[in-house]
């Protein structure tokens, strides 16, 4: 029973996050992941099923920037999407 409920929670979370990202296509996003390269700043280009496709402006490593990256929804630990409300994500150069 508990297992089923847990499954439901995970599915709902998964669904909600996917929906949220879809709703915000073309907006800038800040993402932290547990695995390398740990951080992305970029534009949400599209969402394909549960994969977010990003136009990456900045990561922790310069070599990975200016490229398109696909990030699985489940690997996102923390995210912030820039809207007209709240602070904007810094433009980081260098």
């Amino acid at each position, binding site marked *: 029973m508990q297992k089923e409920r847990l499954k439901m929670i995970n599915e709902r979370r998964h669904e909600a996050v996917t929906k949220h990202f879809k709703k915000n296509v073309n907006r800038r996003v800040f993402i932290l992941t547990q695995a390398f390269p740990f951080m992305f700043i970029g534009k949400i280009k599209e969402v394909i099923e549960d994969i977010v496709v990003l136009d990456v402006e900045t990561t922790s490593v310069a070599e990975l920037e200016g490229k398109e990256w696909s990030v699985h929804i489940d690997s996102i630990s923390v995210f912030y999407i820039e809207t007209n409300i709240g602070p904007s994500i810094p433009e980081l150069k*260098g």
Partner: protein
Amino acid sequence: MKRKYHVVAIPIRIVVNTFGDHNPNGMMYVLKENEQKVKDLVKKNPFTPVDLVEPLVIRANAGDIVEIQFENKLPFHTGMHFYEAEYDVCNADGASVGYNKDSTVAPGDSIIYRIHALEEGNYFFADLGNPSSSKNGSNSNGLFGGLCVENRFSWWTDPVSGKPMNSGMYADVHHPLLPSHREYVWMFHDEMEINDVTGNRPINHITNQEEESFHGANYRYEPENRRAQLISEGVVCPNCVGEEVHHDSWVFGDPSAPILRGYVGDPARIRLFHGGQKETHVFHYHVHQWFEDPQDLSSTIVDAQAISPQSHYTIDPLYGLGSLQGSFGDIIIHCHLYPHFAAGMWGMNRIFDTLQDGSQCYPNGVPIKALQPLPDRAPPPKPTKQKPGFPNFIPGKVGNKAPRPPLGIVGGRDMTELERHAAIEKPRPGAVFTDPCPEETPVKEFNVSIIELPIIYNREGWHDPKGRIYVLDEDVEDVCSGKKEPEPLVIHASAHTCIKINFTNRLPHILDGDAFQLVTRTYETGFHIHFVKFDVLVCDGANVGWNYDSSVLPGETIRYSYYADVELKAWFFHDHLFPLSHQQHGVFGSGVVHPRFSEFLNPATGEEVDRGTQVTVNHPLIPNYRDFALFAQDFTLLFDKDGKPLNPPKFPGSQDDPGLFGVNYKNEPLQFRLGKECDPAYSFSSFTHGDPVTPILRAYAGDPIRIRLLQGAQEESHSFNVHGLRWLNERGNLSSRLDCQQHIGISESFTFETFIPRPGDYLWAFETEEDLWNGLWGLIRAYKEKVPDLIPLSDRPMPMKQSRPLPECTGKKPPPAKKATLLPAKGPIRTFDIVAFQVPITYNDFGDHDPYGIIFALQEDMEDILQGKKKAEPLVIRANVGDTVDVTLTSKLKFDLFPFKDGIYPYPEVKEQAFYPPSLRISLHPQLVDYDVQTSAGETVGFNGDQTVGPGEKRTYRWYVDSQLGACGLWDMADIRNHKSQGAFGAFIAEPRGTEYVDPYTLKPVRSGANVILRNPLLPDVREYVLLIHDGVRLLDQNDELIIDPIDGILLPPPDLDKEDLVDTYDQGSRGFNYRCERLINRYNKNPVLHKLFSSIVFGDPATPVFEAYTGDPVTIRLITPAERRRSHTFHLHGHRWLFDVKDMDSRVESFVGHNVAGGLRNLQLLGGAGAIGGYSGDFMYRAGNIRWDLEQGMWGIMRVHKEIQKYLPPINE
């Protein structure tokens, strides 16, 4: 599988270099199949190194049972004791310990050792049949080796022939699934007896005094003295001095020291062992970095690593040979301790860029041995006439110094035709044969000069008239005119920066002579860097092998270029041409690579800066932080204000611990902080004496901070402690243990990332007695309210406006600290009434004793201890996570019971002995637990109130146990000279919540004690043994004669033993565990049988703790080093292993704990419990790994593991 080796211990003449220096009484382990061959070769080559004369290295795979038939052909009992392995301690320990069967071997006899190699790793082995540290012992003469345990299913081949091999230092290791790699064994060792070709001790040709003792690797060394002799005799390079060409193959050809050969990009593994017996060395490998723990990707990345006797590490260079940038050429590997480096402790990693099939020659005509390419990698291109490959495109002239690099020197030469063919497409200054900087990387340029100027170290006018420092060009005038205080240059940049350095040599051509040094023509200098990526051929700031000499002459500028690829912490820079001559004058600095997008501000003004030992860092994503850099220094050559040299050596040019100490070109000696009261208890008080001149690291309470800890000079270990703060040992690993102490050797670099929880003054100190005495301490000052010259961090709440004036020096006693118990308690309160008093301590059954011991004890135990009903033991108290601990300390110290009332403590000494009368005040400082420094630090520091107690006084400290810290040291901070080495220390253990502690024999609850059973409703019962390592003890023998340890404890001392010069100040004194030591000399005098000295059958059990358990019992050892000398100790427990970091499941598994020095802490949960995974029983020795001078002096004891139930020892609950 079972793997068999037949090993023989033989006497052998060990020739250590081509100059004919040799050990006539060498000893080695050798495979039986090579025994006769090696003997014949040595006979034919009495003054030439023989390849087969090398420490024995054998190999096995993880999971193998290794069966060794060991045959002894030496004239005394010997054995092979293996680290890391599991084995039946009664049959295969290679020793005769406790009540075990003797597993050493008589001359002419043999034995079978069967050991289980459970995991991949470095299994050091050495003899324990003859534990003498003198030249009559076995270890100093070479009786050690290594078993390299590879991953399962591996096989190995000879790198030259490609054929299978049975033994050897270098192998190519292959695996069906993993990449093949080069495996190199690097076996440091020291203190071996060395004679020259005449059979006498080598003489230094400059000082005409006896040469430094042997410091080498793999039975080889290549001393500067020997090579410089060829210059002075006019054989080579008549315009050279010596030190600047010490490593130059153009001048001398290749050294006898190890050369580890490979091709660019080859995966490689260096198995680093310390087979020596005394010194802690620092292994440094240019160009490369590696994980401190190769199996743990969260572990710290290092490029210099301290290693103490009988310990070992695995060095897996990241990105393979040549690192990320694919650099090739000669890459030096050395002990970074300069006197050791100059003595000959170095070698090279030679990285070729073309195929070596045996048909090529070096520029001097010596054939290049073939080198098989690794089978799973494309072989490098074959050499051609146009592209001959390294080193044959370099336009050097044999017998002369290496040429300068092309393009580097401003106004210097262009490339030759051959260089052009070897160069990259777009060569530029500092990046000719490889370019470490990716295209379009942001560039940061620094103009750095090196200058000479006098530096004043303290208010008493102690000074270095020939200070030499790095400084930015724009600061030269301000520093020289006195507008800016000289400090070590620290430059700042973000990750992903291409750093360009324009380096100008503004030094005089000559370093003048004085009481410390002889005149030296230090005419060229370089800027050698650690950590960053660079082209080693042109940018090393050094002169190594067949590379260029990338240094610069006076008045010239050279251009270097590096890439800071990721956040690298602090990278060390220094000179590599004349460091022995002048690095101790201040020639060191650091670059800090911060996270990308960082901005660096002057903490006082908020202006943007790019240098400084203290900066404030703004970052758009992570919390802003304060960044502080501290550099420890020793061999600091100082004069007092009247020009008298301080601690000069016996003769100029001697490397025998000359001079004193510094931190960031300052020191604050305690001898000058006695004041009118003459009470050491207030030495650290700013109320009484003002702030120290040493760095005060300034912040607001709550600020995140990063401390960059480095050591700039020159030879010794130091122990950095911060009181009241703590950090993750592995910064990027949340599973890491918490630490508040760090051992450091020269060139190592550590970052401690933490925050300051409360306002107040926090003491930082290099806390061995002699360092602290001579002024290596300072403060971290956290303000509560806004001060005018410190900007707040922009992402922290603005500090309140200043409501009261800042405290000032009054010259009087500090006011008492506020009551700690006014602070709120958290969780259950546990109270301890602790008394400090004097009582004689007996260290062993032979009557060695300290009649003037000072101990802490529970109030309820004091009378019993004084009356002799209870033995004096270090106080060990415990509390659980979540507890608040209220410790009430009472002083019962009596002036009459101090031995040296005149204020001079004669032995063990410290450098610059001075009047420092015993304090009757005492305090109790705890490590790691959480507390308010203004009330409960157990010390009187800065502008915090007085927290010491005088006779009859009481004070309560309040400590919070907020984490499962395990071992924490406790010690007095009121008088570091007259209290601590006399026993004024103890331990606090933070246990899991809900734990009860019972006596292992009565099962009754206890409130203190080093040996308990921990009972917790959620955990298995655990036997806990607390071991306090301590040294610097002043002992008298049974006739009340002073024991001059370590000298008095040396077994088989040779008649020519130079007692006076043999030991450094920090070796002085006796040492042991828990106020006990079982000095082997006592046993030897009673029954002179060397291999039986650890035997309880002959001598009964030792006086040191004998801990008992049953096979399989969970065991945790809490290892604490509260006191106090600078010589670090290795700890080893036979037959057992543990996680290096008890909290980190990814941590490596080892059977040793290295460099234990004041403040060191470790928790060891024995894998498999008592008797290890194999469930063995018997007597397992715990001991120091330092054959010289710990083991002889009594640093050993026994963990007894029973198979059968003993009546007196109740079993623990399952």
